[in-house]
C-alpha cells in the first residue's frame, strides 16, 4: 500500500520535452522530496503521478499496478497544488470536507478530521470563509488541509509551504512529519526550501532539466554529491566552485561549501578582499574576492563584522573539499 514505481517516464508538451526519462522507486511509507531548479519538471512529474497529465511514454506503477488507465480519483492520492486550486464557491470547511463527503465518510468523522487539520494549520477562525476572503498563506493552508483530511496512502505536495511565514512553516513542517509517521503514508514533496528538504526527507530526488541528477538521503547528498550540479544545488548559500587550474589542482573544479571555509584576518590559504557582508543574525555571509579563487562566499556562525574592502584570508577545510572532473562528476 503506497509504493510507487516510475519507469522511464517521459513527457513532452508539443516539441518541448519536459521529462526526459524518469526512473524512480518509492517504497511504501517513504518520504521523498523533489528538489530542482524552477521549471525542471517537478510539478509535471507530480501531475503525471496523480494522473492529471498523460506521460508521453513510460509507466507509473502504484502498489504494483500500472495505473495509466486509472483515473486520479481511483489512485488513492491527495495532492496539494502549487496553485492551490481551491473550490472558489465553497467555504474553507467545505473545501476540506467535500472529498470526504463524496467518499461517504460519516459526518462526525469528517468534522473530527477537519477539526484536527484546521487546528494543525491554524485555520479555525476562517472555516466559514470562502477562498476569495483569505490571504495567500491562508489559501495555501486550506490547500494543505484539503489534502491532509483525506488521509490517503500517497500524498503529493507541490511546494506546500512556500507562502507561509517562518514560524508557521516550521510548525506545519513538523505537523506533516508527524502526519507521515501517524498515517505511514507515502509522501512526495516538492520544495525549494533547503531546510524542509533536509529535515523531512527520507530520500531527496534532485531533478534538473527533466532528468534525475541524484537520489539519496539528505546528508548523503550534502556530504557526497554525485556531481557539480547537486553539490551546487544542495546547501545554501551555494557551494563555492573554484577553477582547479588556478589552484594548481588536476581536477577541473574544486568545490567548497561556504560553511567549510574559515576566515582569519592574518593568514590563510586564499587572500581576498571583502566585497560585501550579509548579516543574517545567526550567521554572516561574507563575500570575498580572492586572488587565487575568485569570488567566494564564506559563511560564518554568529555576527562577524567585516568592512567591505578589508583583507581577509579564507582557508578551506581540506577534508571537506570536493573535486569535480570536466564532465561535472565528482572525482573520488
Amino acid at each position, binding site marked *: 500500500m503506497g509504493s510507487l514505481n516510475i519507469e522511464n517516464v517521459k513527457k513532452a508538451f508539443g516539441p518541448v520535452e519536459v521529462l526526459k526519462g524518469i526512473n524512480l522507486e518509492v517504497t511504501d511509507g517513504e518520504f521523498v522530496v523533489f528538489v530542482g531548479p524552477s521549471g525542471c519538471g517537478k510539478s509535471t512529474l507530480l501531475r503525471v503521478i496523480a*494522473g*492529471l*497529465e*498523460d506521460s508521453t511514454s513510460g509507466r507509473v506503477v502504484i502498489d504494483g499496478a500500472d*495505473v*495509466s*488507465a*486509472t*483515473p*486520479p480519483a481511483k489512485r488513492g492520492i491527495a495532492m496539494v497544488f*502549487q*496553485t*492551490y486550486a481551491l473550490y472558489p464557491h465553497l467555504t474553507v470547511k467545505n473545501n476540506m470536507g467535500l472529498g470526504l463527503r463524496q467518499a461517504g465518510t460519516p459526518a462526525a468523522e469528517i468534522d473530527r478530521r477537519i477539526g484536527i487539520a484546521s487546528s494543525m494549520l491554524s485555520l479555525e477562525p476562517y472555516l466559514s470563509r470562502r477562498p476569495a476572503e483569505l490571504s495567500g498563506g491562508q489559501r495555501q493552508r486550506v490547500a494543505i488541509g484539503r489534502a491532509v483530511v483525506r488521509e490517503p496512502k500517497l500524498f503529493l505536495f507541490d511546494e506546500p509551504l512556500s507562502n507561509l511565514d517562518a514560524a508557521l512553516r516550521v510548525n506545519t513542517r513538523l505537523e506533516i512529519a508527524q502526519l507521515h509517521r501517524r498515517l505511514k503514508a507515502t509522501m512526495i514533496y516538492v520544495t525549494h526550501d533547503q531546510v524542509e528538504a533536509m529535515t523531512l526527507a527520507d530520500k531527496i530526488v534532485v531533478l534538473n532539466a527533466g532528468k534525475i541528477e541524484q537520489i539519496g538521503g539528505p546528508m548523503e547528498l550534502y556530504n557526497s554529491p554525485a556531481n557539480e550540479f547537486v553539490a551546487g544545488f544542495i546547501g545554501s548559500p551555494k557551494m563555492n566552485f573554484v577553477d582547479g587550474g588556478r589552484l594548481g589542482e588536476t581536477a577541473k573544479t574544486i568545490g567548497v561549501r561556504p560553511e567549510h571555509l574559515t576566515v582569519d584576518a592574518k593568514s590563510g590559504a586564499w587572500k581576498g578582499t571583502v566585497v560585501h557582508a550579509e548579516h543574517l543574525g545567526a550567521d554572516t555571509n561574507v563575500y570575498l574576492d580572492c586572488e587565487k579563487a575568485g569570488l567566494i562566499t564564506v559563511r560564518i556562525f554568529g555576527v562577524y563584522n567585516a568592512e567591505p574592502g578589508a583583507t581577509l584570508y579564507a582557508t578551506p577545510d581540506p577534508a571537506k573539499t570536493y573535486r569535480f572532473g570536466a564532465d561535472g562528476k565528482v572525482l573520488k
Partner: protein
Amino acid sequence: MSTATRSLPRTIGAHAILLTYTAIALFPVVIVIVNSFKSRAAIFGAPLTPPTPKTFDLIGYTTVIGQGDFIHYFQNSLVVTVASLFFVLLFGAMAAFALSEYRFRGNSLMGLYLALGIMIPIRLATVAILQLMVASGLVNTLTALILVYTAQGLPLAVFILSEFMKQVSDDLKNAGRIDGLSEYTIFFRLVLPLVRPSMATVAVFTMIPIWNDLWFPLILAPSEETKTVTLGAQLFLGQFVTNWNAILAALSLAIMPVLILYVIFSRQLIRGITSGAVK
C-alpha cells in the same frame, strides 16, 4: 486533462446521449434538405425517402435561381448581419463593461434600462421606426436595417456580457491598472480577449434573429437592391399556393451562410483561456 480522467462507460454514455440528441436535432432538418431535391409529388408522396432518380428534381433550386437575384440577396443579408453584429458586440461589450466594472450611481437602473428592450417586441415600434427612417431618408437602405438590428441586439448582448464580465478576475484588471493601462486599454486588451467565449455566444444569439428576420426587411428595405434572402424566399409563400420546392430550396440555401458564421464564431469557444492567470 489526461486520458485517465475519462472513464469508458461514461464516454460511451455521453456519446450515446449526444448521438441520440443529434439525431433528434438533425432529423427534421435532414427531411427538409432531402425534400428540397425532390419533386412536389415526391415530397408529399414519400417524405421519408431520399431522392431517387425518378423523384430527383432541382425545380426548387432552379426556381430560386431564376426568380430574382439571390446572390445579391445573400450579399445584402451578409452585410446587414455582419455589420449589425459588429456594432452590437462592440457597443454591447462596452456598455456591459461599464455596468459590470464600475460602481456608479444608477448602475442597476441603467442595467435595467438597457434590458427593457428584450421585454417588448420591437415590432410594435415599427411605425415610429419607419417614420424615423423616412425622415432621415434611410428607407430602402441597408443602413436602416443595421441600425434597427443594432438597437435590437444590444439589450441581450449587454445582459449576457455583463454577467460574464463579472467573472474576469479583478486582480487581472488591477494588474493592468497598476501597469498604467487606461480603462479603454483594459477593456480592449484584457477584458475583451478574456470573454471571447461569451462574445461568441452573444454573436451567435444576435446573428440568428437578424438573419432570419422577415419583418424589418419587408418594412424598411423591401426594394430589389436591398432585399435580404429571407425576404426573397418569402416570395414563394403565396396566398393560396405555396411553392414548397422553392421555399425549401431557398431556405436550405439560406442555412449555409449562418451555419458557416456559427462555425466561425463557435471556434472562439475555447477552454482554459484564463488559466495561468492567478493562483
